[in-house]
């Protein structure tokens, strides 16, 4: 599977989804299917899938305590440990919580990233490389804000945090309707993440359709969303009627909702349903990683391996039996003469 094939397959897959939704609604008038049944199925799949995933991981034992230590360990009291050490090499629960917080919220490990410079004089050199970190931060947080903003369609009255988010997001009130920065930042970040996969030879080599597909899917979502909000002006009132119906388990399919909305909704549904079964499940998995969520207190507190079993060992008695004569001649003490 090379770059061309991977890109083609994943692009066609997303394009195919758009066509399916469009034809389904525009030609076959399957509004109920695309507006109600599929979204419900997708949400069910998402929750069942993610719970299944997490339970499966959770049930899987952690036989050894194997944190990657990225700072000075806790030893002698006079050996200084900075806050960074305490977080990157935690010796207790508090440290682990701090480490996980930084990892999940601030992408600590990505922030550590360096770039290899090879050749010219000093052959191997490393320079700071924060672009991936920045791209990832912008991507995830703008996605979160977009998601929060969309709660507007599922709540009445609007909760305060949604209003606040909208206000901050639309801070630069230059245009009407208010231009939300998050959508465009998300677009920029996705484009960056896609471009680096295509342009960096190493990334190109390791990337699979499963890497391009979600990016195209999100680009599709963004495009349809932005088109609806800023260009084609969809009937928001009808849409809210539909979404409120969904959330209250009293589905209605109002007239006059554009096909574009159904395409958007279908892509969201696919994203939700796809998430637990793909690499996107890192969203939940990051919390469970044994190299990050355990403290480096191995020598202080014994870790139990739940499936530990006795193994065959070579005992001292057997060893002495093997070498008794030689040991005696060498003047080594013996257990049995």
């Amino acid at each position, binding site marked *: 599977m090379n770059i061309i*094939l991977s890109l083609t397959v994943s692009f066609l897959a997303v394009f195919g989804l758009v066509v399916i939704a469009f034809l389904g609604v525009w030609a076959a008038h399957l509004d109920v299917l695309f507006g109600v049944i599929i979204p419900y199925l997708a949400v069910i799949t998402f929750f069942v899938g993610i719970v299944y995933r997490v339970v499966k991981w959770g049930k899987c034992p952690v036989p050894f305590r*194997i944190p*990657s230590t990225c700072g000075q360990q806790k030893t*002698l009291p006079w050996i200084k440990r900075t806050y960074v050490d305490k977080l990157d090499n935690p010796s207790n629960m508090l440290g682990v919580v701090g480490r996980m917080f930084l990892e999940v919220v601030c992408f600590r490990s990505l922030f550590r990233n360096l770039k290899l410079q090879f050749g010219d004089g000093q052959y191997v050199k490393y320079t700071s490389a924060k672009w991936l970190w920045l791209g990832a931060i912008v991507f995830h947080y703008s996605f979160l804000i977009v998601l929060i903003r969309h709660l507007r369609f599922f709540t009445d009255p609007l909760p305060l945090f949604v209003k606040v988010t909208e206000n901050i997001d639309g801070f630069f009130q230059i245009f009407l309707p208010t231009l939300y920065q998050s959508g465009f930042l998300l677009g920029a970040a996705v484009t960056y993440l896609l471009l680096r996969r295509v342009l960096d030879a190493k*990334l190109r080599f390791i990337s699979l359709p499963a890497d391009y597909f979600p990016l195209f899917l999100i680009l599709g979502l963004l495009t349809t969303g932005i088109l609806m909000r800023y260009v084609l002006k969809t009937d928001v009132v009808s849409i809210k009627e539909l979404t409120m119906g969904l959330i209250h388990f009293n589905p209605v399919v109002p007239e006059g909702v554009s096909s574009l909305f159904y395409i958007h909704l279908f892509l969201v549904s696919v994203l939700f349903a796809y998430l637990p079964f793909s690499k996107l499940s890192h969203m939940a998995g990051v919390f469970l990683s044994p190299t990050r969520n355990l403290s480096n207190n191995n020598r202080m507190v*014994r870790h139990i391996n739940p499936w530990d079993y006795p193994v065959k060992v070579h005992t001292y008695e057997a060893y002495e039996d093997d070498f008794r004569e030689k040991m005696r001649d060498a003047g080594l003490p013996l257990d049995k003469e």
Partner: protein
Amino acid sequence: MAEEIKPEDLLKIDHRPPVRGWMNIPVEIKPGMHCHACEPARLEVVDFPNPRQWSAMDEDWKLPKDWKQIVMEGFEDRLERFRSFQLFMDICVRCGACADKCHFFIGSADPKNMPVMRAELLRSIYRRNFTASGKVFGVFAGGRDLNYDRIKEWWYYLYQCTECRRCSIFCPYGIDMAETTIIGRELTNLLGLNIDWIAAPVAFCYRTGNHLGIQPHAYKEMIEFFVDEIEDVTGVRCDPSFNRKGAEILFITPSGDVFADPGTWTCMGYIMLFHELGLDITWSTYASEGGNFGYFTSHEMAKRLNAKMYMEAKRLGVKWILGGECGHMWRVVNQYMDTFNGPADHLEVPENPLTGTVFENAKSTKMTHIMEFLADTIKNKKLKLDPSRNDQLKVTYHDSCNPARGMGLLEEPRYVIKSVCNNFYEMPHGTTREQTFCCGGGAGLNAGEDMELRFRGGLPRANAVKHVHEQYGVNMLSCVCAIDRAVFPALMEYWVPEVDVTGVCEMVANAMVLEGEKEKTVDLRNNPLPGRGDTEDV
């Protein structure tokens, strides 16, 4: 052979992988880039499956008939037993943060040495066989069928990973290639696929107690030979004891230190240190290995070899265990030993008899690192030191992978080094502490037949050494790892011939002012001391 390839030619590499997709690029087993296949006798000693004569360069690797089933069952079994493995198979997003962090990729530019790619070799098989999407969509879901060539690919690349964990600290999800390699190697061992440089030490260690197969009488003789050497240099006669019941402390260190330079000088350092401090300490010929090549084979084999430490401590009735300078030994001791073979209720929490310091950080495992012990001893001024005896040295320090990333032993050795020598220089940021680079020969790859692999893998480290050599005139690379001491001399000889290699305890011993010592003119290597030797003012 690699020694004949000029360094500048070895550097002619291009880190841009081909445009062609990786999934169907067949593995090319190159000489110099892999270790010899394991001999059947080694496997028989430890009851491992499929002992037979084979070679990686052969077409037929003589796998058992039902090899596919064995691998699949082994895979599934480990997915169920290790959350790490299951998770690392599932959540990688291929962001590429790890790609240029591996010393083997940096030095070889083989794209399958990118950690993400090495893991994908297993992940692709996992997806095809154990996930719904892989079963349905096959290659489009990133799945690959298991076939003979892919087993070869696993073997080739899993034994081109030194389990150094450098990639894991850059991974946003903490995906640890070492963990994948450890489990991947377990799978290859189900088919009798190992390398002899691992399988032989395992077999030796199982029977004789150490990797090198040194028998008890010989072990004692070698240490006694060091005692003579020490006396020649210092005029002080040390009196180490062996397998002595009732001693307070059991000392365990890698057998490599007993066997070959420059480890031997480190070993002399231990002997002198224990003598000077008057420790009630014993060596063991049975637990005569700190390292654990079983750990490079399977978790079970690691446990089988590690068991000797506690068993011997119990038999001798010691109070606690002191561990010498070693890398992966300390990953096993720190992160596995208590789980493997504990609880060590027969021992007491380690306490430095000279200072009264209780090593609370080892209160369960009851084993303390010699650097922790030394740092405490020096801090409390229990050692008479004259750092000027090391003035001929300009020292840099290599953090060994395992103590750095599987423990966090960073400041203790630095404190000790700075206490015993006046000229210490750090290597550049990004190559030390938790970001340290492997020597290129860890995890059992320090054989003689894979020199090219070692020179390539050791390039980033050697390059950093070269940098401090050129900038500050560094002429000594210190480390606290026996594999480092075995690997670095050849690596330095190749990349930075002006720099020599030492263990930290050797420098400590040279700086020590022993009670009753004669006027020293040479160090443990019989090199003249600055301002004192025959070559004064030359």
